[in-house]
């Protein structure tokens, strides 16, 4: 099948005007799920940023005689929580924090993962051995335990949780990048650069790094969702963001104690996490398919 594939997959040659990015965008646009995911995600981010404009309530304003009002009562569209705070307002503000946690954690993990992976993969030998043994050690910790241990050292809190799950993510990216670099390193365009007299750093950052980005962007998109869930898990253990922070994981985990008397308090944040992670996944899947159309069809 692949030989027939290669015959029909003859790219529009010479006549095509599209750049790679544009082609990617074009393919992505065709994926209804990915587009839906992207729109939802964008909406959530906008809602988070525009939170103060969208609601007149203060997310931290406890009104004790208005506790646990069911959705739609007392002027609260989604009801109130155990402190009498407007749930919708807290969800809006929570969008900022939760989504930010995911993105920032992934960004930190990416940054270090890429550096480690690039150098380990490109230089090989001793550099590789040292870097990858370190990564092995990190990988020998199951991630929750590693995160917990890090938080034990840093103390609980949103920022610390972010750092912890970011560190957990480093080995993952380092491995992806290293794997990609190992195959790129053998590519003839890298050899061509050497033949032209380019230095190692130029080759690493100008020629190899951009070519590792495609698999990484896909992995990172899928991972943002994972990180949001991981952060929520730490909140559940009381090690993540601290109350009264309007973070979805905290809200979910605090709300679990009102599951019978006021299920909405935990169901809505749970739903929010679910929707965001889902849309990130749809987007990530779409990106992957768009980057590697072979897998789709």
């Amino acid at each position: 099948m692949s030989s027939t594939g290669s015959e029909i997959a003859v790219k529009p040659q010479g006549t095509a005007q599209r750049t790679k990015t544009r082609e990617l965008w074009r393919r992505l646009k065709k994926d209804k799920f990915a587009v839906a995911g992207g729109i939802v995600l964008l909406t959530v981010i906008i809602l988070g940023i525009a939170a103060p404009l969208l609601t007149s309530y203060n997310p931290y304003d406890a009104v004790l005689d208005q506790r646990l009002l069911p959705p739609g009562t007392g002027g609260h569209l989604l009801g109130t929580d155990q402190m009498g705070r407007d749930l919708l307002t807290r969800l809006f503000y929570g969008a900022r924090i939760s989504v930010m946690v995911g993105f920032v954690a992934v960004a930190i993990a990416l940054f270090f993962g890429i550096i480690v992976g690039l150098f380990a993969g490109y230089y090989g030998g001793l550099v590789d051995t040292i870097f990858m043994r370190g990564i092995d050690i990190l990988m020998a910790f199951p991630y929750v335990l590693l995160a917990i241990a890090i938080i034990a050292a840093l103390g609980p809190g949103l920022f610390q949780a972010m750092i912890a799950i970011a560190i957990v993510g480093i080995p993952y990216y380092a491995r992806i990048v290293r794997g990609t670099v190992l195959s790129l390193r053998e590519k003839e365009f890298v050899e061509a650069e050497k033949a032209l007299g380019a230095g190692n750093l130029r080759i690493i950052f100008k020629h190899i790094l951009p070519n590792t980005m495609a698999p990484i962007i896909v992995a990172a998109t899928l991972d943002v969702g994972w990180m949001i869930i991981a952060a929520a898990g730490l909140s559940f253990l009381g090690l993540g963001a601290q109350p009264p922070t309007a973070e979805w994981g905290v809200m979910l985990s605090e709300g679990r104690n009102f599951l019978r008397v006021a299920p909405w308090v935990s169901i809505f944040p749970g739903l929010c996490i679910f929707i965001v992670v889902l849309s990130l996944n749809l987007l990530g899947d779409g990106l992957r398919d768009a980057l590697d159309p072979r897998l789709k069809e």
Partner: protein
Amino acid sequence: MEQQPLLKVTNLKTHFFTDDGVVPAVDGVSFTVNVGETLAIVGESGSGKSVTSTSILRLVPSPPGRIIDGSIIFEDTDLLGKTEDEMQRIRGDRISMIFQEPMTSLNPVHRVGEQIAEAYRLHRGMDKHEAMQRAVRMLERVGIPSPEKRAGDFPHQLSGGMRQRVMIAIALSCRPALLIADEPTTALDVTIQAQILDLMRKLQEESRTSILLITHDLGVVAEMADRVIVMYAGKVVEEGDVAAIFKNPLHPYTRGLLGSIPRLDWRRRTILPSIEGVVPNPLEFPTGCRFNPRCPDAGAKCRESEPALKEMTGSQKVACWLMERGC
């Protein structure tokens, strides 16, 4: 030599329906393979020669590919009318196939002996033991030294040439009437290629199997085939006996193809006659003759309507307006 047709392909159209549009990979191809002969299909990448061969076995990946028209008469029945079950009984038994990449065409996780034995078990209903014995004998026939030991090897333990011998063993295990060989030697070194071609010829003589040889290498065609059809952009542009075509290529594409290969007996460092331009994008085939943008002699008519395949001298057929004018 009697001219008894074994396979008759008529107006075969296999199109691929992709996101970007319809690719007419095979677009109205007709030809006949006679019993005991070797027909070569020659063409460059994108000409549709491989799709033609997989269409015969109805192994075109679907979606996106679909045979939308034509007939494939094999041993007097139309393969396109058969059920999938019936096709499965034909594949590997009456018609079998070998592929270009011996590296990837064998399953890396099964022993080669098992892979040959599988054909016997499927089509001859043999038990495991008997099938394996036959497989070992087959390995011996294709010239693999110490076949008993080799049968227990995995594909990666064999060299490229040996792997292609195993592929041939699989294909010929059930003594097929027709062997489709899709670029069987392209991935091999010349000395190994010579071995494999030699082997194929020997086996064909023994069993009178017809061969449909797909290749881009005119040298291989000259050595192996009785007749040849030349494909370009999903169409047959020329057909005829090997001797005739090599001596007197009628289509400008065939001429260009023959001219562009440097030959050992040519004078060194001469400028090679070549075909200008590139193979057209299958989504945007030019109107008229599909070769017209690259044809040095193309006229107005060539750009307007498509020439049909017409019989010229003797067995030779060509699809070219220039020839028609000439006649």
